């Protein structure tokens, strides 16, 4: 059974390479996008922490930031 799945009547190399290429593509794209997201979130956290208390209050009042803040680590502080 296991041999059959790997050999696939002589087409195993073609079938497995197609599936491995697809799944590798998924993994690479997911990792790259995740990395970009984490990098931007860190940048936002860093900038937010360095803001003066007046600016923090100003940011918290703005609607667009109120939507964003729950999604960043700032909300966990």
């Amino acid at each position: 059974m296991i041999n059959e799945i790997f050999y696939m009547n002589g087409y195993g190399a073609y079938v497995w390479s197609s599936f491995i290429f697809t799944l590798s593509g998924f993994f690479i794209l997911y990792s790259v996008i995740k990395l970009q997201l984490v990098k931007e979130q860190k940048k936002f956290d860093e900038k937010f922490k360095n803001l003066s208390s007046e600016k923090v209050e100003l940011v918290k009042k703005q609607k667009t930031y109120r939507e964003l803040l729950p999604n960043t680590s700032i909300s966990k502080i």
Partner: protein
Amino acid sequence: MLKYFNLNKTLLTINRLRKFIFAIFITVLLVGLFEALVLSPEDYKQSDSVRIMYVHVPSAWISLGIFSLISILSFGIFIFKNKNFSLIAKSLAPSGFLFNIIALVTGSIWGRPTWGTWWAWDARITSMLLLAIFYLMYILSWRIFDNNDKAIKVSSIVAIIGLINVPIVKFSVDWWSTLHQPASVNLLKETTIHSSMLVPLFIMTAAFALFSLLIFLMKYNTELIKIKNKGLDRL
């Protein structure tokens, strides 16, 4: 109506479901892989090489679908002057491009045992390659131009021109004599694939669509945070 529809809020609400979507994607993918590699039968002519269809066909469908969506959104940018459309289109492009590459590569791998060649300059394959070039130009236009308005304009024009290629990809097998087989799954005509192969094909399509949604949500969120980061600089 568009004015009252808060896209940011809607998408950020969906974004909170990201972990949930990831879990569903993994489950559907595992079921699809088991169906495609173990349960589905071999073809009487192509034998087990037919299993390549389960990654090749959904990739081609989704890459075409995403490019069509990007083109429609690009029309929307010019008509409604809504910058959110450009953010959505930009966030859709990476997964669309990946699926286009997967369709080309797996098609090439499938071509070797069935046609006896890795590549042929036939209408379907060439038009799919052209679609990949349009994807590349679209993604590059966002990277090349520093001016955001110019990047939106150029990328939208690329997407709108590229839309001409979409029906060519779809109907190339009917309009010209090609090595590539005609469509086996039809919405209007009878489907020529047996249900034992159609079920894994649809499960894999669902898994690939969920992956696109996941990548889109992550990319869209990244783009939003980039904008807010610029906003913090201006404070």
